[in-house]
């Protein structure tokens, strides 16, 4: 299996056809599904038809940057005429009437929609155990979680079932599963990628991005996905650089800030060893490393677990059983219909977050929780602004530990929430951040995180690409999936 960039190139040079490629991947997907459960829907017939059309376009000398390349979308992105479940019973029968902007743009670039990936319900989770369609398993060890919420996308790319997949990252949902599955996960700046047609969880934090084998592939996919969209009121009207060209920029003299707060007592010793080794590699490439402290950063998880549930409780109010989604049997009256449809349609974690959000927004508690969290969020943001006055990027681990066993952290919500302790900060401040594989701890992948200032995707990707040109961690494939 080759990378997204190589496959796009091979198709253009007609070394193989899109139909051959789609056929081969469909066979891999079918074979993997009982073991990994990475997908919720597979569009076999539609993908083969689109592949035939792509082959005709390529034969005629036409096509875009991704013509004929099959990709998967996280099942949070609306795909016209196809089921979009968001991993929830609530939307089990929901067929999107339109394409999300991300889906439309990748289609316009020539990419084919092969399948929709499994995910934590409404993107709420860090282990992919909260899906109505069952947990996803980590291809490196099926007893382990793949991370979440974009766990299906991460497992699918790690097992080379698709060369690239979309994901969304509200508190780490692209970077954390990418780290745990040994692939490259890129969360762009808030506002860089349109949220139109991306089912809303926490609107001030949600951002779409990519899960790929390499930073070069992320650059290619992101270049086609990013850009202003008048249909998303927080989409930023700024030009999108050619990330594919920009990543070749050398990193000589790059000022790296080593995030002191990320090397805390929760960090696994093996993860720390891998990350420190990666820093030496970057120093060897000419980067200058200094220690940076963001004193308010340890408060990011408590801030997140006020702000995200508050926004979720508002966003998920739309699931009322009236216009779409699950409706209970024989409702007595309207209130009974709302309550039972929602009680039956949502899973346990989603209900917990809706209730947490409802509580922190309720009369008498709003100031103490919600407004207080928004103030601490401003402090964390100010820490990042200050840090980026003296360094170009911040570096640390993506996660405190490698992948953990399925069921190990389900008993206590806080234990699970702390998986995102190193990733949430970038969401609160809206910063671009990437996770790249940087080693293994007891046979499981470890991720290195690179965070940059707003709209510095090109620099973040260039640093990741420079690292991947000198290391081969990103080329490792789990046994049985080569």
């Amino acid at each position, binding site marked *: 299996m080759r990378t997204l960039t190589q496959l796009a190139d091979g198709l253009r040079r007609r070394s193989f056809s899109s139909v051959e490629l789609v056929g081969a991947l469909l066979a891999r997907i079918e074979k993997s599904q009982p073991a990994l459960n990475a997908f919720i829907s597979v569009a076999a017939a539609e993908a083969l038809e689109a592949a035939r059309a792509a082959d005709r376009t390529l034969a005629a000398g036409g096509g875009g940057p991704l013509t004929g390349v099959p990709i998967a979308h996280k099942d949070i992105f609306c795909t016209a005429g196809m089921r979009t479940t968001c991993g929830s019973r609530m939307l089990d029968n929901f067929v999107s009437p339109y394409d999300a902007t991300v889906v439309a743009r990748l289609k316009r670039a020539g990419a084919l929609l092969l399948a929709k990936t499994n995910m934590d319900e409404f993107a709420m989770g860090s282990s992919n155990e909260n899906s109505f369609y069952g947990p996803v398993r980590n291809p490196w060890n099926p007893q382990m979680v793949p991370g979440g919420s974009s766990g299906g996308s991460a497992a699918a790319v790690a097992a080379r079932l698709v060369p690239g997949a979309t994901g969304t990252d509200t508190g780490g949902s692209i970077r954390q599963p990418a780290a745990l599955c040994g692939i490259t996960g890129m969360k762009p700046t808030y506002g860089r990628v349109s949220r139109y047609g991306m089912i809303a969880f926490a609107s001030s934090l949600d951002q779409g991005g990519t899960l790929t084998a390499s930073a070069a592939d992320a650059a290619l996919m992101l270049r086609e996905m990013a850009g202003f969209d*008048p249909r998303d009121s927080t989409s930023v009207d700024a030009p999108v650089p050619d990330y594919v060209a920009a990543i070749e920029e050398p990193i000589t003299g790059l000022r790296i800030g080593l995030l002191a707060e990320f090397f805390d007592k929760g960090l696994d010793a093996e993860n720390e060893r891998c990350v420190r080794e990666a820093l030496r590699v970057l120093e060897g490439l000419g980067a200058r490393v200094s220690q940076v402290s963001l004193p308010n950063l340890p408060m990011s998880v408590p801030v997140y677990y006020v702000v995200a549930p508050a926004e979720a409780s508002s966003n998920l109010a739309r699931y009322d059983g009236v216009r779409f989604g699950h409706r209970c049997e024989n409702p007595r009256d309207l209130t009974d219909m*709302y309550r039972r449809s929602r009680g039956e349609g949502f899973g346990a974690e989603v*209900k917990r977050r809706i209730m947490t959000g409802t*509580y922190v927004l309720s009369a008498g508690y709003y100031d103490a929780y919600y407004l207080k969290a928004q103030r601490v969020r401003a402090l964390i943001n100010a820490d990042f602004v200050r840090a980026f006055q003296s360094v170009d990027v911040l570096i640390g681990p993506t996660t405190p530990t490698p992948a953990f066993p399925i069921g190990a952290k389900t008993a206590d919500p806080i234990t699970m929430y702390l998986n995102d302790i190193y990733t949430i900060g970038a969401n609160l401040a809206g910063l671009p951040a990437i996770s790249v594989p940087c080693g293994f701890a007891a046979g499981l992948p470890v991720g290195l995180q690179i965070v940059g200032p707003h709209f510095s995707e090109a620099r973040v990707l260039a640093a990741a690409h420079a690292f991947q040109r000198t290391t081969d961690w990103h080329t490792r494939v789990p046994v049985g999936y080569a």
Partner: protein
Amino acid sequence: MALTREQIASIATLARLDLTADEVPLYQEGLSRILEFVGALERADTADVTPMAHPLPGLTQRLRPDEVTEGDGHERYQQNAPRTAAGLYLVPKVIE
């Protein structure tokens, strides 16, 4: 901060969520843990700090001209509806 069963019932009512008798103690425990955890925010000194609602400082929500841009798609949209009749969404009777 520990929440009572009554508080959980009242939050569930506000959120329009029907909880089973088994679920109430689970959410009582879970929400109490979460509130205790986020209670750490109290210790942060935030005097004179402006609350941050948006990650891109200074960005304001765009306005657009008030023009019709979408066609009539109600038949397509209503294919997802649990119950419809004559182009309307049906719900249990609200007014006797």
